[in-house]
């Protein structure tokens, strides 16, 4: 589903590299965690998938599509196939939880009927029915992240990309978020997640890709957090 083919990313100075000759594949319905120290290249990797960053060498494919050959005008359409979740939530501050989720559907050109039906479902999935009309600054960190996840899944994307989704959360909220991601994966959506959290990795018991200095150093099908 996602295929990195010998991807390198050099910084502007041309010497230091964020990624070096990275090659791996993610199959449909997999739950892949990417671990590594800060600066190991995890976030750069995810940015390549959502076409926020370009490789210096190599190619990244989404199914048979070379992501970095997509014309700029078609990028919004491509991004709608991917749900994104970030450490800092990235919610629209002037919109309520409900509106944040609805916005992703509006941007996708969904009908009002679909929005009326699907947004409450997404809110129910992350257990936030009662906070639908709160603004982000009225929500806790864990609640904000659950809104972000609801927004990411509401368009039924093929894949969820989560960059340190538990990085700012306390242990209980972390547990809840991981449970939700696992549930989404069980329902058939591919999940790619970066994390620092050993507990999360060990609890999940899924595939783990370990990165160090821009290279893939381990790739275990039933991984543990080893650094």
């Amino acid at each position, binding site marked *: 589903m996602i295929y990195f083919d010998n991807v390198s990313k050099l910084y502007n100075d041309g010497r230091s590299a964020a990624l070096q000759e990275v090659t791996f594949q993610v199959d449909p319905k997999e739950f892949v965690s990417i671990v590594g120290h800060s600066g190991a290249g995890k976030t750069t990797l995810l940015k390549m998938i959502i076409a926020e960053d370009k490789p210096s060498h190599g190619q990244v494919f989404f199914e048979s599509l070379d992501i970095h050959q997509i014309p700029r005008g078609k990028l919004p359409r491509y*991004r*709608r196939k991917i749900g994104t979740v970030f450490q800092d939530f*990235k919610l629209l*501050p*002037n919109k309520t939880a409900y509106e944040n989720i609805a*916005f992703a559907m509006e941007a996708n050109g969904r009908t009002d009927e679909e929005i009326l039906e699907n947004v409450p479902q997404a809110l129910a999935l992350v257990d936030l029915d009662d906070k639908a009309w709160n603004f982000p600054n009225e929500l806790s960190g864990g609640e904000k992240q659950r809104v972000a996840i609801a927004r990411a899944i509401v368009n039924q994307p093929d894949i969820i990309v989560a960059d340190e989704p538990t990085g700012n959360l306390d242990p209980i909220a972390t547990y809840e978020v991981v449970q939700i991601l696992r549930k989404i994966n069980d329902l058939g959506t591919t999940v790619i997640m970066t994390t620092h959290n050993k507990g999360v990795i060990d609890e999940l018991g899924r595939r783990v890709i370990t990165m160090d200095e821009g290279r893939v150093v381990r790739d275990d099908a039933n991984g543990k957090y080893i650094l």
Partner: protein
Amino acid sequence: MLTGIKRVARAGFIGFWRNAYVSLASVFVICVALFVIGSTMFIDQLLTVSLKNLQAKVDINVYFVPNAQQTEIDAIRNAVAALPDVSSVTYTSREEALAIYRDRNKNDEIAMQALAELDDNPLGANLAIQANQTSQYESIARYLEEKRDQASAQNPVIDDVNYNQNREAIDTLTKIIATVEQASLVVMLVLILAAIMITFNTIRLAIYTAREEISIMRLVGASNMFIRGPFMLQGAMYGIIAGIIALLIFYPAMVWLGPHTESFFEFNLYNYFISNFTYIFGILLGSGIVLGLISSILAVARYLRT
């Protein structure tokens, strides 16, 4: 398509309302810009009218000798009126000239006595000639002087052409008018440009605060038009509201200024404001909308480029 427009409109209105302070600041700045544009319009109008009034006071007078034949006077009068540079010719007959003289000197006993001593009316007929532009007086004067010189010495028709006496005043006035028109044009252009720059920068700052939002919208796959639309609508709304506020400020200002301009410039600004209300309303509202809209489009474009 219709759903898209509806959503953009709703997002625009909600954005306007929820960012009330930013909206208020933008409206205020556009209002100031419109005030500059409106004042420029009014000042320009005042200048034009007062210059026209001044120009109307400049003329060349042709004095005929008292015993000139009426046919000869009429010939010159018609010839002058036919000149392309001449806008109007006013004929004053000998009798009228005398009546004006009597009226003007009715308290001057010596003048009245002197007049009574004379058997005949000592005054000749005269023409007051106005040109379309002050710069054209010279050629008209030259034409009249040629006419005078053509007539035979024994039988003169034109006694005097007073251009040479007025020449300096007319030349100075011509220069002042030209300079004032140019200078006011430059000052107005600079003011309007400054107003536009300030508006543009304020809206750019307003949208700068929304750059994070724009990047989030891009991440969830919103198309550029879908992101830009609400900001464009907000920009247009700033313009409409600012235009209405500017008019509401101009109205009492005009009521107050009207009599003052009437006495000073012989032109009532309030009457001008009322009789050209639709035009002024259109200019202010139109400039406001264009200012807000273009500023928004340019400011958002920055964050949509990459």
